[in-house]
Structures are given as structure tokens and as C-alpha cells.
């Protein structure tokens, strides 16, 4: 399916969606964080979209906002999109978990929580997966400082 067609279908699913293809090979959908779970649920379940395979889930720190990038693919219809969601709150960022839509999100969200400190609603056991439970700070954020262990060139 062409990106324009995809955009037309997806546009009807939720409100306040932004679309862009600039600087990317995929169609990018930016969704407000309140509509994330609803949109993902429809992307997964609508038969003409059928995004059943989340092949990459990336945590992101854009400097001001924190967020998550979902790379989605449909194994039957062979089309791909990118869904982005972001939040301004750096102190207590909370997003919805999509682990019951794509089970792979369970582990990827743990990773994102561990490195970016983004908390996920309804996640079945949010814990520090890689780092020790008492680790201070969120290492992959841009403002993370660790003078002892980080070598800055």
C-alpha cells in the first residue's frame, strides 16, 4: 500500500495526528500521548492495516521531549509505518504501554524505562532490566552526567 493511502486510512482513526515523510523512508505518524493506545490498538486490529509486527521500539530523547518510536510492519500486507509519541514532562514522563498489543513491547519498554526513565501505564512489572535497582539517573538521556565512567571526547 502506498504511503498516501495509509495516511488516509490512519487519519480517520484518531484525532490530532501529524504526518510527515521528511528525512525518513517511512510514513511517520506523530500521535499525542493520550491517543497512543487507541491508535495502536486499531493499527493492530483493523484488517486493512494489520500491523502485527513491531520490529523496533526505540526510546528517544529529543532534547526537550522524551518519547518512543515504534517501527511497525504488517507481515501479511507488507507495509510499514513509524509511530512516534512524545511527552514534555521530563520529571515524571508517563506513556501508555502497548505490551498487550505487541508482546515484544514488554521487553523493549523495560529497556526504555531503564535508560530513559519513561514510565509505562499498565506494564506488567516495570523494573530495571539492565541496571541495578538503585542506579541513579537515566543513562541514555542527553542530560545524563557521570563524570567517573563517561569519557567525553
Amino acid at each position, binding site marked *: 500500500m502506498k504511503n498516501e493511502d495509509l495516511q488516509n486510512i490512519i487519519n480517520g482513526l484518531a484525532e490530532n495526528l501529524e504526518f510527515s515523510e521528511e528525512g525518513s*523512508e517511512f510514513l511517520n505518524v506523530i500521535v499525542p500521548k493520550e491517543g497512543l493506545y487507541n491508535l495502536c490498538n486499531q493499527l493492530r486490529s483493523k484488517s486493512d492495516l494489520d500491523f502485527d*509486527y513491531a*520490529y523496533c521500539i526505540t526510546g528517544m530523547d529529543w532534547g526537550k521531549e522524551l518519547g518512543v518510536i515504534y*517501527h511497525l510492519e504488517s507481515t501479511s500486507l507488507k507495509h510499514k509505518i513509524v509511530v512516534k509519541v512524545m511527552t514534555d514532562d521530563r520529571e515524571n514522563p508517563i506513556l501508555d504501554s502497548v505490551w498487550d498489543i505487541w508482546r*515484544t513491547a514488554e*521487553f523493549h519498554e523495560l529497556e526504555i524505562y531503564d535508560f530513559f526513565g519513561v514510565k509505562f501505564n499498565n506494564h506488567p512489572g516495570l523494573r530495571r*532490566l*539492565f*541496571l*541495578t535497582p538503585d542506579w541513579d539517573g537515566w543513562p541514555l538521556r542527553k542530560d545524563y552526567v557521570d563524570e567517573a565512567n563517561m569519557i567525553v571526547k
Partner: protein
Amino acid sequence: MTDQEVNTKMKTEEYFVNMGPQHPAAHGVLRLLLTIDGEIIKNVEPDLGYIHRSIEKMCERDSYQQIVHLTDRMDYLSSHINNEAVCLTVEKGLEIEVSDRVKVIRTIIGELTRLASHQLWWGVMGMDLGALTTYFYAFRDRELINDIFEETCGARLTMNYFVPGGLMYDIHPNFVQRTKEFITHFRTKLPEYDRLLTGNVIFEKRMKGVGLLTKEDAISFGATGPVARGSGFASDIRKKDPYSAFDRVDFKEALFTEGDSYARYKVRIMEMWESMSIIEQLIDNIPEGNIKEPTKAVIKLPKGEFYQRVETARGELGVYINSTGTKNPYRVKFRSPGFSNLSVLNHISKGVKIADLVATMASFDFVIPDIDR
């Protein structure tokens, strides 16, 4: 006593066992927190990070040429393919088209890497099941591939041979001949692998029907590579999204639908045959061409996001680079196959025995630095 009284009096107690971080079957420093009832596994909770080096953060500080060598250290058994993934992403960003020669050489070396990785897996698989001899037979054949690599790239494990724009230097003059010799040798040895392990009644009983993963679960959990193809999920990027020279070779995607450990085993054995056939198709006529497309000494990717997927020996490796136009990437994410495959483990190993968990893990072929990154 009634049945209920017996049941309450005979109640067994669940207990925790730490499998790892130092455990012979963990293949590295994977720690699994097992909840066990007798021999039956109730829950598997992985605890990672024992070999986490934060490669993604290090990439944000390095230049694009320097990123490549860090990926050697992720999935060290498919280091060439990891290098290729980063190079392809950077080339995509720079809009460089590498010469046919580079594409073909990358494909051949990638397939040799896959062979070497699957050989090591076969040896270790036997060892996890208690047949120690397989390890040495597999290493005998793997050494030959490592020799080929050493002759061309100078290293046996952490290659760093592919650079953005092509290859670091041309292949060694002996490369073609030695590769052909290896293929002839290995075509006689692979049937021996089958005779020693594949048909063995104990092995079949240990593997068949163990660790069942359905196709739907495989897709939903993002399982890739032989794990997914053993469940019937056609996830081979070489077919789906051909890169390098995979669009000009003819090969079958190894696909089985049983979804058990034995299917995953057969996928890898079949992939070894297919890899040999791919190499044979390409090795005789490597086209002439530039070894390296000229790039600036300081590579600056244009502003934007670049994503490239490749098929490593373990599955789909995705490289996501977010560039702001400077000489360093703004954010690099490696979607490693092992991490997604590991998330399946708890789902499919509830209610099996400890020995089955070990067999399942062996059939998943974990490389822990690939999971931890």
C-alpha cells in the same frame, strides 16, 4: 483422608534458583531467575546487564566510521553482518551506491559468517544436551572459516572489515580458492553432523515437541531468525528486503512450521546448506570494481532518520540512526535479534523441565552481548 486433604498435605513448595550469571548453559553472563516446583519450571525471569557496555551511548560520541567497530562486540559471532548493517545505514544516509564488487564480497563474507556462527551453535547445542564431542567437530570446520577471515581481514572475531562506502581493503588473493576448498570440505562434513546428532533417537526425543512457539506468538513477540522460521514466520530479511547481492542469488528460505526446538534445529541445518549454495553461486565471478567509494574523512549524515535491517545468524538486526547533521549521530538504536528472542523464553518454558529449558535455550542460540549491547 480425602483427596483434598492429601493435596494440601502433599503440597510442594516452589523455590527460586539462580541460573547464572555464571552457568554452563547460559553461554555467557545471562542470569535467569527460575521459579521451580521440583523439576518443573513455573516462571523464568531474565535479569540482564551483566555485560552491558552501553554501545548505543558510545555511538553518540563516536564518528560514523568508529561506530562500525563497536558493533563487532554486540553479536560477536556475526560481526561481519553487524558491520554491514551499520555501513548500509550510513550509505543509505549518504546516498552512496557501492560497487558490485563490494556487494558481492559483502554477501559472500556475510554468508561465511553465518556458516561459522551456525557451526559454533551446532557444537554448543550438542554440548548443552550432553554430547561433548560435537563441539570439537564443529570447531574443526569453523577454524577453516576463521582462517579465511584472518587472511583477509587480519582478525578472527572482531573483524571491522567493512567501512562506510565499501571495504577497508581488497580481499586476499587466496580468498576465492580457500573459500572453494572450504565449501568442498564442508559439503562432506555436514552430512556427518546429521549422522552424529540429527537422527539420534535421544536427541530427537529431547528436541521434538519442546519449547513450542506458535506463529502468532512469534510475530507478536518479534522473534526473528531461525526461531521465527521454525514457527513458520517468514522473517528472512534476505528475502523480504534484499540488501547487498541477495537479490541476484537463488536460495530457499528455510521454513518449518512445527515451532519446536527440533524445527529451529532443522532451520539452521538447512540454512547452512543454503549459505553454501549462495557462496557457490557468487564465488566464481566476483565482478571487478571499486573497493571503496570515496567518502569524506569526516562523514556527516544529512538531517533525518535512517533505518536498515539485515539478517544476522540470529535474526533481524535493525540499525536506527537519527542524525541532526553533525559528525556524530544523535541517537543510534540497535534492534538486536537476541533481545526480542529472549522475551519469548518465559512464554514458552512454563511447565517444562530444567533440562528442556536448557535445550530450548540452546535452540535459541543466545549470544549475551547481543542481548545486552
